């Protein structure tokens, strides 16, 4: 290899090589196994994803009692339904201290973590890069209306904004408004309209069709 070979690498290549080297050492010394790494990757990329949060939201849209309990005591609901709602069976769900905040015609909620990158991971998967950016973390608490407009969420000036800065153990999830024109849609169809950003108020659910 020549001394300039690295200039052709993808920007993430040095980090990937470092992680690969660390994994190789840990496996060769018997600290971990490759199967454990694969399991963890599956937990984070497969089991913990926004499809979980979307299922809870879709159920809340069609079931008034479920919605009431989701808003009143989400952790109790997660303990009860975590293994029933498909794809939401990971063990972290039962330990999640979740607070659900509801968007209405008068109120819009936005979630941020100004100190680090706290995020309801079991229901949403790992946070996206922009959520962890200094810019989003600094501006979401200070000028949320401008940030939302840049994210494509144009709010009526009369809509009040609440920003939830995740500074302790609670994690926040937004229950977005059900899109118009979805009457009669099934829970599965509704769940497909729920986007990851809409679950923290940084986007809106998709419109049908």
């Amino acid at each position: 290899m020549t001394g300039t070979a690295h200039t052709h690498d993808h920007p993430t290549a040095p980090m990937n090589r470092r992680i690969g080297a660390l994994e190789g050492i840990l496996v060769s010394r018997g600290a971990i196994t490759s199967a454990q790494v694969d399991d963890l990757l599956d937990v984070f990329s497969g089991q913990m994803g926004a499809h979980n949060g979307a299922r809870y939201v879709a159920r809340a849209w069609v079931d008034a009692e479920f919605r009431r309990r989701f808003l009143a005591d989400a952790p109790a609901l997660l303990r009860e339904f975590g293994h029933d709602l498909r794809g939401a069976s990971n063990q972290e769900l039962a330990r999640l201290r979740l607070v659900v905040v509801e968007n209405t015609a008068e109120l819009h909620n936005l979630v941020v973590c100004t100190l680090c990158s706290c995020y309801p991971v079991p229901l949403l998967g790992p946070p996206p890069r922009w959520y962890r950016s200094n810019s989003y973390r600094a501006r979401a608490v200070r000028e949320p209306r401008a940030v939302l407009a840049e994210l494509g969420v144009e709010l009526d000036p009369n809509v009040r904004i609440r920003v939830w800065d995740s500074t302790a153990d609670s994690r926040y999830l937004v229950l977005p408004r059900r899109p118009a024109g979805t009457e009669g849609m099934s829970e599965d169809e509704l769940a497909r309209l729920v986007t990851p950003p809409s679950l923290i108020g940084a986007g809106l659910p998709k419109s049908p069709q």
Partner: protein
Amino acid sequence: VSFYPGQPVRTRLQAAGGYLRLPVYARGRTGVVHALRDRGVYSVRFRARDLWGAEAGDHDVFLDLLESYLEPG
């Protein structure tokens, strides 16, 4: 000291030692207790203008704060 929902509180400028999760922008500011989250952890609601002055928007910011960060407002 313990606080109740609706009570005005003020965040301390110098909280006790240890792991501190009180953002700089919310130090020495006045808010209102919104809810009790866990034992000794309160959700506190701040008006944006009480955090950043009159030019700030009219939104509210909610933070989960330990009892030791707070004093009656």
